[in-house]
């Protein structure tokens, strides 16, 4: 098989199998018409439209966008990157959930074990933590870029409000996650943070009591923050993101040009 003919024979066979696969019913049932993965779709304007239109992507993107909107210098991709970081945080977070128990003292020791006993455990934890910090930054910068473009002006006023809610939810997600390592940093940062909330004039103490699950942080707080962090807040932010993206399109696509 080492001689030239043999290699050529294998190559041809592989190529033949490839084209057989790409023409098969199974393949064509997965990739809808227009997809570049299909053997029968060339790079025509119509197929370019089909790539989006015949695809789950159509839920996020229209077929065409304004030319200035695709310029990197307009959105700086900040909204998109915030979304991507959210996805990444979901994936890494699910990984972490396999190794983490929200009880004291298990939580702390689970994270220690993650660093030593789990393949790529520390790397994934690092990505989750730095990704979370980055997401706060990208969301904040996204808001800033939207402001400087005046992109909150009619008809986009309400999407700005949805955006502020997303910013709040992002901060809350980050804050509830902060407690989970159950180390000195987590405990006292969250203590300082929730003490601030307790100063609220009317319901401050009640809200703080409900969030923390008592007058001060205990192991119960850990469970409470955990459920908020892995279930409740992601659920709510997903809904608001759906509204946010839908409104971006319904409000006439990306704003501008300036």
């Amino acid at each position, binding site marked *: 098989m080492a001689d030239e003919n043999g290699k050529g024979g294998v190559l041809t066979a592989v190529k033949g199998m490839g084209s057989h696969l790409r023409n098969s019913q199974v393949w064509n049932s997965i990739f809808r018409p227009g997809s570049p993965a299909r053997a029968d779709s060339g790079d025509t*304007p119509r197929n*370019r439209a089909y*790539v*989006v239109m015949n695809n789950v992507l159509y839920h996020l*993107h229209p*077929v065409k*966008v*304004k030319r*200035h*909107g*695709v310029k*990197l210098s307009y959105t700086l*991709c900040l909204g*998109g990157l915030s979304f*991507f*970081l959210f996805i*990444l945080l979901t994936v890494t977070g699910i990984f972490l959930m396999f190794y983490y128990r929200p009880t*004291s*003292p298990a939580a*702390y020791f689970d994270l220690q074990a993650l*660093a030593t006993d789990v393949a790529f455990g*520390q*790397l994934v934890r*690092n990505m*989750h*933590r*730095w990704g979370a*910090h980055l997401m*706060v930054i990208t969301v904040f910068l996204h808001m800033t870029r939207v*402001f*400087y*473009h*005046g992109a*909150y*002006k*009619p008809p*986009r006023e309400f999407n*700005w409000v949805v955006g*502020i809610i997303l910013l*709040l939810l992002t901060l809350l997600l*980050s804050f509830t996650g902060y407690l989970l*390592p*159950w*180390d*000195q*940093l*987590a*405990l*006292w*940062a969250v203590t*300082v*943070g929730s*003490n*601030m*909330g307790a*100063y609220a*004039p009317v319901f401050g103490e009640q809200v703080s009591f409900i969030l923390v699950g008592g007058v*001060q*942080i205990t192991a119960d707080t850990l469970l409470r923050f955990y459920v908020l962090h892995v279930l409740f807040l992601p659920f709510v932010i997903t809904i608001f993101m759906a509204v946010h993206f839908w409104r971006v399109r319904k409000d006439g696509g990306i704003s501008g040009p*300036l």
Partner: protein
Amino acid sequence: MAQLPENLLRRSAEARAKADGRPFEVVMAEMKGEAPPAGAAAAAPAAAAAAPVAAAGGPVRDLDAESAKFGVRRTLLERGMFARARKDGTAVPAMAGAVAAAAPAAGQAAPAAVGGPPPVSGPPPGVRTQRLLTVVKAGAIQGTTREPQDKVNVWPHLLAIEFVALLVMLALLTLMSAFIDAPLLEFANFNEQPNPSKAPWYFLGLQELLAYFDPQVAGVLLPTFGMIALMFIPYVDRNPSVRPSDRKLAIAIFTVFFMASSILTIFGSFFRGPGFNFVFPWRDGIFFDDLKTLLE
């Protein structure tokens, strides 16, 4: 020519007769393109006066007069007349007045006008002919209010950019995570508060404010007010322009707040040490545990 159903013709003839104050039969006959009944000539003085007697003895129609009277175009009257004659196999009535210059088909109208036999020139059997009813002025059925825009396909132009941005972000994050570990300090101890105790970095601007104001103000009023103010920006800023040169005030205000919160956050993160007292990071060290693993 499309034939109106009898009942519709009747209805419009009745209306017309009422409007003109003429007997119904006359109007009906006219509308049908038939000769008016004999007695009708006297009852319709205008039509009778205008209708000279034909040399051939048949009925004579003054199409110009009828046209003016009924507000129907002469060509239409002519066409109706020809069609009726063709259908009934009768001779076309003689016409008073000028031979229509705009007769529907010159070749067909000319012999008819001089009393020749009606040409049998209908469409061949099985062919449907169309008649132009009216010309509607050009204009879209749906009004388009949007200007055409310069657009590009999302695939490949936008998706390619997004994909690259995604890869760059993933690469950065992976690199950072490969080299900098997330901090994990000692086990949580309720009896030993570290000094300083700092909130997560995105709240350090607020914690910094706590050093200047009453906790009610710094911890509650300012952030609540700040969030509400942010939400109300679109409803307060009534200026429709998005050009930076038109919105100097808005940009100035936002920039002041943006810079202030950034400076407060940086200050709280790096310039506060034990007891949340002021420190110089280069002289006294950095008390910022979020980046502890990076700084060690």
